[in-house]
């Protein structure tokens, strides 16, 4: 998925402790157009639950969430 997906905004959330990665994604979601995608890279493992929970409760979509080495990488789509 990540290979083909067009990324509208890259967010470097490395070093931020939870819940700040989720806060930054939320603050930036309106900086991409509807259907646009944010690629967020975090180092706090808590983000693996926080960002999907935020997306589920606000109605946005996590296209993928996974670990790449020491990093947690998310593709989040703005749905509305």
């Amino acid at each position, binding site marked *: 998925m990540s290979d083909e997906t067009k990324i509208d905004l890259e967010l470097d959330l490395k070093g931020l*402790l*939870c*819940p*700040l990665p*989720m*806060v930054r994604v*939320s*603050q930036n979601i309106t900086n991409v157009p509807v259907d646009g995608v944010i690629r967020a890279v975090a180092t*706090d*493992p*808590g983000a*693996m*639950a*926080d960002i*999907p*929970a*935020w997306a*589920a*409760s*606000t109605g946005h979509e996590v296209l993928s969430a996974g670990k790449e080495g020491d990093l947690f990488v998310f593709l989040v789509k703005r749905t509305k």
Partner: protein
Amino acid sequence: METVEMQTLAGVIDKKMNRQLKQYIDICARCAICKDACHQYVGTGDFKYLPARRAELIRQVYKKYFDKTGRFVPALYEARDPDDNLLDELYDSTYACTGCRRCMYYCPFSIDTAWILSVAKAVLIAAGRGNEMLGQLADAAIFKGDNVAMFEGVITSGFEEIAEEVRAITGNPDHGVPVNKQGADVLYVALAGAHSIRPAAVIFEEAGESWTISMFEAANYGYFYGDPEKARLITKRYIDEAVRLGVKEIVVPECGHAYRVAEFFYEAWSKEPMPFKVSHILEKVDDYIKTGRIKVDKGLIEGTVTYHDPCQLGRNGGKFEQPRDIVKAVTSNFVDLTPNRAEQWCCGGGGGIVAMEEFKDVRLKSGSKKVEQLKASGANILACPCENCRLQIEELNEIHELGMEIWQVIDLVVASMPLPGNKKSAGA
């Protein structure tokens, strides 16, 4: 705004106003002593951040609808409708308030402005003007709690990684992070971040504590948002888990508001007695050090260490001495900030304000007193338990080039423990 809508909002005030709050509104002498106590007013000079002014907005609506003097001669008593202008001002003055209650400490009548502002938050939420970010954080926590199965895998694998780090630090292959251990004495309710679990796990394991962790976290943005029902639901998750696991004690992390919620508010919200003891992690650590359950070495931390009392833990939680005793146990070079304990200046980062981008400017300006205190201390290391305080002070540290190291107290404790894998060393 429609008259009927304004009446509904005024009704929220009436419902929330108990005798004590009504008394606060009546007895304020407009002496403005509180203005010099509020870090936000001192840092910005902006009238809307003057504590008595914040409360005044609620008083004006109360007078208009529920007090005959205000009803009949509104102009004389500055009685007002909760219209859009009032709500705009109320939003700024309410959500910017860090709930530090320093104004209450200095007020000759001990008027609790932060409590009055909890009524303001209820009005704002009823008007659809609750802070969006805090509401989202609360909803995400509730969603996580309702869908534990969905997150169990990622949370557990995070615990496993932390357990490996714990073994590497302590050099003990039997150490780890026990998860959902039935019959443990202590349930540690951490924050979502690994930083609040790793050092606590090292300390619990080294102390030989019978402990466990669960899937639920202590942070409570429902409380900052101002919705007691959301706040209760977030807390209830770990209370229920503690009952299920049969623990004797809940230990909350360094986070100041989490301690206050568990220790002081939950029983009132749920109207149920807490079936176990609630402790702050620094109470436990202080006890482990004093009883010799963990060993700390004063020689491992270089430099001068000072301590910031987070408002929720200190002035509002009454925990002044245990954190200081811990810091004094890990260093011979401790200096206190001036003023300290109940008179401690709020750093400006509490109440969820670090998550609300719209208050960034007032937040940073309101840190001016903390910056003065830190500079005057001459310390190069700050021990600071609360997560929100640390975020704020780290930013102040950078902007004002203070050159300080900001440490969680339990990280400082682990750094001072003579452990084989201890690479982190303060002040070095």
